[in-house]
């Protein structure tokens, strides 16, 4: 059988998963945590604690600041020291709640035992409510509030749930370890999301460089099928290793052979995609009452002597994590949050982890050296590599000219910033840097236009509505 994958573009970087053998390990609790109020896409959360308050593990620190927002919980027990701005990993100020840790005192209603709870609640609404109260966000990288994703707009029907276990980013192994060590929880979480969406089919998609995980999850699914009808319809699918398979649109293409159109959402083609770690967080929130207060982080790199897959409390300072494993190695020139393709270079190691932090990668000067830039030779490799079917060489030229209209016409807003163009460019042109900046600019223009159109429509409605109201 031909190996399944997405249809256009993609690259094959070496997977470098050197930490795949490292078991998940709990990082000791740091003396102070800094929990950011904006750890998700959407409006920042509003704090409900004050300086001097005593908090327990799992206590709500902040409530959603809007429809698209999420609860933030305390990941430690202790005293709130301050609520104010602090520099995040890119050096920009962000509102954080600083908590001085005292002991490890959990909220009473959290089930801390290891017993599996396989019974799925009957009511889909109660599942979604618990996910919302648990502050669960998408842990694949985008940190989209999960309860919003699981409530599709009226008229849109979900046909398939896809659980993303691709982990196509080189180096990262936390999803892989989660599948191996917490496979049962992931599958139960899948069943929970399936129930919440009211969908019959669910696919757990895993790339075929993780054969152990595929076999293990297959076994778990077969075992759980006897537990109830909610577990039927869950399938495990092996996909060909190719970057960026874990991209939402690419994964839908690979699994369902459907393409999400420009500006569309996965639900438009009947799909909902969630990461394996999100499924685990859903399990913990719904079955164990445990909100999202920790997540798995891969700490790796060839120059890093002690690879690890750690379960880290949200808000742990990065240098605490690194010091626990022996400090920044001498040869390391760059520390990256996330994987080497889409990760962000860290400018401030005093910053703290967030819900979406998936990896800390150390790279040497040799590994991060930029190729000297030369002129574009129109070889078309970038266009061939682009999984969204864009023409990066053209976008680069338009971005340099500042032609936002042409950029929009050439769909720069569809760029998923996977970095395939930059990876494949033989001329060493920093395509991604330039295009992602232009993308931000164009999306800003589009948002402003949409807001203006909405305001105009509302004004028209108001003026048309007032005479009839009388």
């Amino acid at each position, binding site marked *: 059988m031909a190996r399944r994958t997405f249809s256009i573009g993609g690259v094959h970087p070496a997977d470098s998963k050197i930490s795949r053998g490292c078991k998940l390990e709990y990082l000791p609790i740091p003396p102070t945590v800094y929990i950011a109020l904006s750890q998700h896409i959407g409006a920042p959360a509003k704090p409900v604690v004050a300086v001097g308050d005593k908090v327990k593990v799992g206590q709500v620190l902040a409530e959603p600041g809007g429809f698209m927002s999420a609860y933030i919980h305390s990941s430690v027990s202790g005293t709130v020291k301050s609520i104010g701005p602090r520099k995040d990993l890119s*050096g*920009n*100020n962000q509102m954080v709640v600083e908590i001085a840790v005292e002991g490890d005192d959990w909220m009473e209603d959290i089930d801390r035992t290891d017993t599996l709870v396989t019974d799925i609640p009957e009511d889909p609404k109660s599942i979604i409510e618990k996910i919302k109260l648990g502050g669960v966000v998408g842990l694949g990288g985008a940190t989209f509030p999960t309860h919003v994703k699981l409530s599709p707009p009226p008229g849109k029907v979900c046909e398939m749930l896809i659980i993303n276990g691709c982990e196509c980013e080189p180096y990262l192994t936390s999803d892989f370890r989660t599948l191996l060590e917490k496979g049962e929880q992931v599958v139960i979480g899948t069943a929970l999301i399936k129930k919440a969406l009211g969908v019959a089919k669910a696919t757990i998609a895993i790339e075929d460089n993780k054969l152990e995980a595929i076999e293990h999850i297959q076994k778990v699914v077969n075992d759980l099928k006897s537990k109830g009808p909610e577990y039927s319809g869950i399938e495990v699918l092996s996909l060909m290793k190719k970057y960026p398979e874990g991209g939402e649109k690419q994964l839908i293409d690979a699994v369902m052979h459907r393409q999400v159109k420009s500006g569309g959402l996965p639900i438009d083609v009947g799909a909902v995609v969630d990461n394996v770690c999100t499924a685990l967080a859903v399990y913990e929130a719904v079955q164990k009452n445990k909100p999202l207060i920790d997540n798995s982080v891969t700490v790796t790199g060839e120059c890093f002597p002690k690879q690890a897959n750690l379960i880290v409390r949200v808000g742990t300072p990065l240098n605490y994590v690194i010091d626990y494993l022996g400090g920044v190695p001498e040869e390391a020139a760059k520390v990256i949050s996330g994987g080497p393709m889409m990760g962000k270079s860290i400018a*401030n190691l005093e910053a703290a982890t967030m819900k979406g932090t998936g990896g800390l990668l150390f790279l040497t000067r040799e590994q991060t050296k930029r190729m000297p830039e030369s002129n574009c030779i129109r070889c078309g490799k970038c266009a061939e590599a682009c999984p969204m079917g864009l023409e990066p060489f053209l976008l680069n030229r338009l971005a340099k000219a500042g032609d936002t209209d042409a950029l929009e016409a050439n769909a720069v807003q569809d760029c998923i910033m996977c970095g395939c163009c930059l990876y494949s460019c033989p001329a060493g042109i920093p395509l991604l840097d*330039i295009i*992602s*900046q232009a993308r931000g600019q164009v999306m800003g223009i589009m948002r402003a236009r949409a807001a203006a159109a909405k305001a105009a429509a509302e004004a028209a409605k108001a003026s048309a509505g007032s005479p009839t109201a009388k």
Partner: protein
Amino acid sequence: MTTTIIWTIAIISGLGLLLALTLYLVALRFKVEEDPRIELVEKAMPGANCGGCGFAGCHAFADSAVKAPNLDNHYCPVGGNETMKKVAEILGYEMTEKDPMVAVVRCNGTCSARPRTSEYDGTLSCKVKASLYAGDTGCAYGCLGCGDCVAACKFGAISMDPETGLPVVDEEKCTACGACSKACPKAIIELRKKGPRGMREYVSCVNKDKGPGVKKACASACIGCGICAKTCTHDAIVLENNVAYIDFGKCKLCRECEAMCPTGAIHGVNFPKPIDKDAIKARVQERQKKAREAAAAAAEAAKAVEVAVKPAVDEVKKEESNG
């Protein structure tokens, strides 16, 4: 042979005449009525097509100016009052003179004052750099040093100083078109009043963080201490978001704030004499001491009055409550 040449000349001339006539008739029929003043105004403009006036170019400006009821929303920063006088003359409008402006770089973070905290190896563009992170120093508000303003300037008036890593404005060449100010992703460059003989006073920092953090990031930043605002007797300085701002409309160029600033974030330029900080400081301190003494004396006097008046007031109150 001769007849061929004659015929050819005749036909070609005839064709030419016919086509000229057609063109003349078409031009007459489809003539675009354009106000002749537009051309006159355009001729009076500098012709740089820089867009500093907010229009697409000099022609667009002229077109709009002719159609406008007055010249309130039209001003050519490049040509300045001279050009605007000519435009007003052509159009027969009133013209209000504007003070000449100049681009001012409000960042003090030289390489020595603002230590680098990381190394940037990406594309040399402030726009790209700002979209990636806060910058390669501890200051998230300061100059990124990639020179987007230099590239934006059509008059060659900005250059990067390799020593300080900051842009320098050539006041002779600067036309205050505002292109650099728009290009700067950190909004550091401001158009300020050029001032008498170019003399002006400004806060060369836009860092909105609180004092201790700012000081750690940059030795010559505004720490928002407010000394300048307290010193100023012209009410020209406002302290907002931990950063001082001098209103150039109110500043009287006394240079007291500059002398009192503990970090040297306030700059005075083009003054004929170098600033004598100690003398100004002594003067200001003397004045403040006198003000304090006067305030204390006034408080003392108020107290004395109160002591004298209070028993009487109490007496009245008592009577009122009794009654």
